[in-house]
């Protein structure tokens, strides 16, 4: 049963949980907007990568390759290869959305991206399925709105931002924070170290396949760790000592 009206507090809590992510996401959106403004593609087409592709790295690659005059099929292929991780995220959320109405899966699936998965899983872990849906939607919709607004702001005014701010470095730092804070559990720890090492080794892999390869290596390494007792974690970003639902 999905009742967002009855769970307004959970929608608001999901939105609040998304706020820390916005510190890293909004500058990234600005960077994409600036890239689109400087690229040799129509400004509206650059902005449309936001609502249509809705994944930063893939958007940047699409805009950059279109601007460089790459072959259209190559651009589509690269954009999709970068987004292969979305299949993993889809699998991660599938069990929480099993049996939900089609309209929910079509809408919630559209909003799937790294921060919405993290915030959503936290909600399902703490609140259970029904209230977790509201928590997910609150965070995911706020992210979507801010992302599109940031790209638009970058398109119109972002070129004036001083280069010394190095806003492009906010995202790696945020990811470092997420990874370091989750080293307590053996399985995520192995996954984190293996994925980081593999990413460095695969840095020169073509079509930005390195990230997907590194993720596969990290997951494989994490699976070699023994599950933490009988309590199974449903949250990949939290220690597995809490019983779901």
């Amino acid at each position: 049963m999905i009742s967002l009206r009855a769970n307004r507090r959970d929608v608001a809590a999901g939105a609040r949980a998304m706020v820390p992510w916005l510190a890293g996401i909004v500058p990234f959106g600005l960077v994409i907007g600036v890239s689109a403004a400087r690229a040799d593609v129509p400004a509206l087409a650059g902005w449309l990568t936001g609502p249509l592709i809705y994944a930063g790295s893939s958007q940047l690659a699409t805009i950059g390759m279109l601007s460089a005059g790459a072959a259209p099929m190559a651009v589509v292929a690269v954009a999709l290869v970068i987004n292969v991780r979305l299949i993993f995220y889809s699998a991660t959320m599938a069990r929480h959305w099993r049996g939900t109405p089609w309209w929910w899966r079509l809408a919630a699936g559209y909003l799937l991206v790294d921060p919405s998965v993290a915030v959503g899983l936290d909600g399902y872990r703490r609140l259970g399925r029904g209230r977790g849906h509201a928590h997910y939607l609150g965070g995911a919709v706020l992210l979507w709105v801010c992302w599109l607004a940031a790209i638009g702001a970058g398109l119109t005014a972002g070129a004036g931002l001083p280069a010394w701010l190095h806003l492009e470095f906010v995202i790696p730092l945020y990811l470092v924070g997420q990874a370091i804070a989750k080293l307590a559990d053996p399985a995520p720890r192995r996954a984190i170290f293996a994925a980081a090492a593999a990413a460095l080794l695969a840095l020169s892999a073509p079509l930005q396949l390195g990230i997907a390869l590194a993720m596969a290596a990290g997951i494989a390494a994490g699976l070699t760790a023994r599950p933490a007792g009988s309590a199974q974690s449903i949250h990949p970003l939290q220690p597995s000592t809490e019983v779901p639902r």
Partner: protein
Amino acid sequence: MNAWTVILAAGLGSYLFRLSMIVLFDRITMPARLQRATELVAPAAFAAMAAAGIATTCMSLGAARAAAPLAAVAVAVIAVLRTGSPQAAILAGMPALWVATALLPT
């Protein structure tokens, strides 16, 4: 195929990726091992993207100026370990990056 259709095709493909397992696993039960694997997706993805992003930034700056982002990462790691808060990485790391960049010879 112009820019508009390229973006539309990439967007449609990305949406199908997002829906793929949601639709598939509604019909079948996810094996336990695959369930464990899905729990590791986010840590693996974040670590891989962080490592690649830092390495790319360092390589673009060259050996001499790569010290600034590396110092920022070191400060961020220490801040997170001391506070236990992931947000400390940005709050401590970005000022460290600005200071280190300013101190390094151009």
